């Protein structure tokens, strides 16, 4: 925890700050929390009613002022994105929820969908009002069947209660949701691929511009956000922008759902204010590693790893700090890599994921991420790699970066580069010795 003294009230950057109170995940895990009656009994839909009493622009301004940045990975300011919508011109407008959560290490949205679906509905209703979209689309990844069912039931309940449909919550505003189920393709998380998928097309990303606000779903004005972003909007409207902005650091405001996986005592999702440190998250909340660790992946497998050290543990988990350390906050999906995991094997695993998920549209990704790079890893791991192979791999990932059509190839290349940067000795050991520094492990809980 950093403790800079200043006269203004100190921003909340620790979950242990007494002023901090969980909101997004306050009800996850509570039996029955997915029902409308539970939600209402905990103040549900009051924020939506409040928003409907404001001018749409006022809602957008509130979200802008809150400093909320998109929680889907890229961290684009949510209120600013909402303000990109063209003036109302009679065309149908859409608010879209990206519930395709598929980035390895990310699992925060799933529990929101399963245990607090009304929170999302309320968030989308608020956003729909703010951008004057009367149709919301929720694109849920195909594997989240339980979540899909919970959300479908919640939508039915909400319709029956007049929260969705004509004149929602007694207002003049019509709003309804279309629930759409994916079918196993990570690329559908990319916003334009998601729209293609929703429209019944192959889920290749689209050219940008035009951006979704100009031509999104069905070519009509659309805004897309992550599940967590919508949920955060509920509390921003309920408690005010200032409440939200009081948490976090200069460029990263509010609370965030961090996820911890890998060998720690208590893996799971933790809601903490932005700017909390890895130490707080991993050591204090998640109980620390259950065996010696050597690296931290800060925000999902596409974000470049950081070596495990006291210095790293003391880094605040915010957008700027991560960028400064040439990584990214991503989805906040922290993965702890144990000392005894061969880094080459770990990154083969990561690369295999992106190889499997490349859409195949563009050359560097189809031939690099999806074909050549995994083959190089296989060669290395088979003990047949050479130093030229390592040079080739570095050259290859260099040319996969910034050349592809969408960020998926970067997502594959960047973490590989970081693994070379911090763990070159493991690659070299494998080449020189023909076997990994850390042999493959067979542990599996009995």
């Amino acid at each position, binding site marked *: 925890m950093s403790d800079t003294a200043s006269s203004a009230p100190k921003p909340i950057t620790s979950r242990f700050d007494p002023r901090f109170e969980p909101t997004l995940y306050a009800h996850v895990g509570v039996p029955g929390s997915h029902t409308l009656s539970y939600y209402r009994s905990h103040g549900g839909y009051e924020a939506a009613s409040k928003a409907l009493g404001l001018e749409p622009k006022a809602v957008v301004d509130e979200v802008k002022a809150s400093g909320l940045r998109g929680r889907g990975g890229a961290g684009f300011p949510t209120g600013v994105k909402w303000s990109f919508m063209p003036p109302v011109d009679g065309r149908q407008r859409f608010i879209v929820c990206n519930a395709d959560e598929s980035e390895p290490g990310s699992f925060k949205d799933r529990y929101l969908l399963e245990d607090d679906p009304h929170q999302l509905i309320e968030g989308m209703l608020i956003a729909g009002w703010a951008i004057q979209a009367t149709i919301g689309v929720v694109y849920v990844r195909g594997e989240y069947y339980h979540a899909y069912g919970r959300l479908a039931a919640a939508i039915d309940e909400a319709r029956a209660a007049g929260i969705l449909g004509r004149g929602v919550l007694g207002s003049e505003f019509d709003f309804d949701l279309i629930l759409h189920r994916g079918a196993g*393709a990570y*690329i559908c998380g990319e916003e334009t691929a998601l729209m293609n998928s929703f429209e019944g*097309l*192959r889920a290749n990303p689209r*050219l940008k511009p035009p951006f979704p606000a100009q031509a999104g779903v069905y*070519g009509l004005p659309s805004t897309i956000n992550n599940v967590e972003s919508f949920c955060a909007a509920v509390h921003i409207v309920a408690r005010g922008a200032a409440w939200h902005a009081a948490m976090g650091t200069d460029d990263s405001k509010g609370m965030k759902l961090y996820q911890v996986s890998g060998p720690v005592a208590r893996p799971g999702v933790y809601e903490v204010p932005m700017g909390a440190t890895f130490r707080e998250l991993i050591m204090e909340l998640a109980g620390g590693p259950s065996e010696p660790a050597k690296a931290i992946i800060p925000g999902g497998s596409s974000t470049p790893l950081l070596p495990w050290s006291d210095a790293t543990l003391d880094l605040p988990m915010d957008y700027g700090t991560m960028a400064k350390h040439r990584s990214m906050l991503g989805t906040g999906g922290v993965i702890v890599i144990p000392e005894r995991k061969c880094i080459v094997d770990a990154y083969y695993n990561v690369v295999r994921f992106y*190889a*499997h*998920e*490349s*859409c*195949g*549209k*563009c*050359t*560097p990704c*189809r*031939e*690099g991420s*999806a*074909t*050549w790079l995994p*083959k190089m890893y296989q*060669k290395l791991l088979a003990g047949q790699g050479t130093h030229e192979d390592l040079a*080739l791999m570095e*050259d*290859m990932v260099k*040319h996969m*970066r*910034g*050349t*592809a*059509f969408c960020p998926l190839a970067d997502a594959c290349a960047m973490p590989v580069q970081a693994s070379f940067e911090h763990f070159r000795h493991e690659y070299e050991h494998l080449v020189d010795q023909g076997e990994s520094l850390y042999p493959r492990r067979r542990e599996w809980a009995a």
Partner: protein
Amino acid sequence: MKVTVNGTVLELDPGTSAIDAVFAAGFDVPYFCSQPYMSPIGACRMCLARIGAPRKERDGSWILDESSGEPKVFYFPAMMATCTTAIMEGMVIDTLSKDVKDAQNAMVEFTLINHPLDCPVCDKGGACELQDRAYEYGTGRSRFVFDKRHQEKHHPLSALITLDRERCIHCKRCVRYFEEVPGDEVLDFIERGGHTYIGTLEDGLPSNFTGNITDICPVGALLDATSRFRGRNWEYDHTFTTSLDDASGSAIVVDARTGRIERIKSGLNPEVNKSWIDDGIRFGHEYADDPERLKRPLLRRGEGFEEVSWEEAAAFVAERLAGFSGKDVGVAIRADATLEEGVAARALAQHVGTGQLDHAPRHGPSLVPLHGATVLDVATADALLVLGDVTEELPALDLRIKDALKGVSPPELFAHGVPIADLRLKERMPRASERLAVVAPYRVDLMKYAGAAVQVPVAGEAAWLQAMAAVAHAQPADEAVLGMPRAEAESLVRAWREAQKPIMIVGGFVLASEAATEAAASLAKAVGFRQVLVPPMANGVGLEITQVLPSHARYDYQGMLGGSAKALVLSNLNPAVDPAVAERLRSCELLVVHDLFLTETARLAHVVLPGTSGYEKDGTMVSLEGRFLPVRAAPVDAGEARDLTGVVKALGEAFGQRLEGRSVRSARRVLRKELGFDPTELHRLGLLRELPRRRAIVSLNVRETVVGDSLRVPSLARPEYLGRNAHLRAALGGPALRLHPEDAAARGLRTGDEVVVPVDGVPRRLEVRVSDAVPRGVSLVPATPEAPAGPAAVALDDLVHERRALEVA
């Protein structure tokens, strides 16, 4: 806008893509996925460049570079695909620096890792964009040491197109093509990522425009099945010419090798066919290479023929003709003869002194409309009324109609040609179907794209047109005839009247009838349509304006066959398919037939002269829009075959006369006087001319039929040659008898059955095709040059079942 490309400064229109800017500046940048006339998609990443642009302060002024005082150029953090980047004021594009070179090397290497590099056995070798680009922009080596992707190598996508999946580089040109150009989405990517391949579930790629994908495939993945393994690209002689398969004036390239035609590719004519041709034009050339082609003149000797020299044959004809009074001689030529051939035929008729001169097939009314429109007008029309089945009758027009529905005007050309990346074009663009109304006596393909589609009864066009004209004049009209509620008809008329550029396309069903043609003209006048009339054959317009016409209606082609001519010279016409006509021809005193094959008619002839195909002659044709286009002979071995000018030369020599039109050159001397320009000087893209309208020749030319309740329908494949175009026939099936499912069931007919059925009294061998596009009670049979599109009597009761289709399991 000012753009700087590698230091070269140039001014370009806003909206220009960076890739076109690079080419306009005289530099090259490699590309695979972009393709002129198709949407840029940025998939191959081959065209990357370093791009920068100045930025503005909040107050709108440029952010200046401290040291130079000029607007500061901010480079994009990553390299940009030039094909999908629009130029901006002050943009700086760099395609030469080391970074760019490195990226190009890398993209070439990526592209090649899964490419089989089987260039020595690949038909595309020598004309392969990948080969060229790898050579120019690659490092010449690959560091990929693994087994390449193995996929199907000889996959027949259809009878016409063979796919080698290993060679595919996923540029998506072919897949986009089907969606963007004909709008038939019959090909798609299957699977994803590294496993992606192209494929179809549609049997045989049902579209009339499949062959174009073999032109645009940058590698040897999609190949023309008629020419596979036939030659290397550098061995081909390329002849840039105009197709005589229909009246579109489509530019084609005939590739020949050692005296034979190996394949036909699309030529480029931005104002006509862009770079697309239909499958009939592309694959319909095999007949020219048929072993049964006549190579030498034949003279009748008793029951048989004897091969003779041209001199002998001509001497025989000249001597026999001398025995006739001039007016008893008839000369008739097929309507795909060139202007020069028309002049020759005319000269021959003049020499013998006959008014019995005609071309066939020909409609009664003139093919030059009062207010005509061009193909480009069609492509930019904002209201279209299509009467008939253009997709079959003149497929090139079908594609231009679809252009009009996209509403993107034809691009301005650069010095380097058609824009490589026209940023106005998008994948899956909306089509303004409300601009299109289609009227036909059965469900035609174009109706899928039409906002209004009306199926009229057979020969019901006149009534429909009159009814619409009545609506236009606010007079009563029968809704049953209109085929729609009056209010809808009124709103159609309103839309036509309000349109800036309303165009009516008139097909053969209407032109076959005087009344319908008149009704079409009246409706056109009433709402302000300009008209495009679809000639029944390639040079109908040209032969009309060069007056290859009878002096009197009773001397037209049908008149000649009916007995007005005692001696007949027929070029490429085969009336003896009709046994009744054959009977009459048997008693003809002199029958001279000029043709490619020993047709039914040629068998009855006294002299048979070997003719040339449309790929083997030089000349000029006039397309439906009045565009004069050059026809050029490809270097192929046609034996002693000659075109009509050659026939006239031989005859003239035998007469001891120097006839006009005894050579292409002498015919052009005549044409130059009549047309006011020399066709020799025609540019490849042709010359659009205002055309004279001819006096109406009330004609019997369209064979008089018992108006039946069935139809002869046009087909993109030339019916007279279908049997000799093996690949095309395999793709399309044989000449079809199309029936409604219930009519077929009632007679126990199934798709694939072979039958012989009298069509207007002429027994025809046809293949049954059951289709719900056909109305009940109507049979559709193919039109032929002898019996063009129009109503027909099909005597299903006299149908003979020749062979039944195999049972489907």
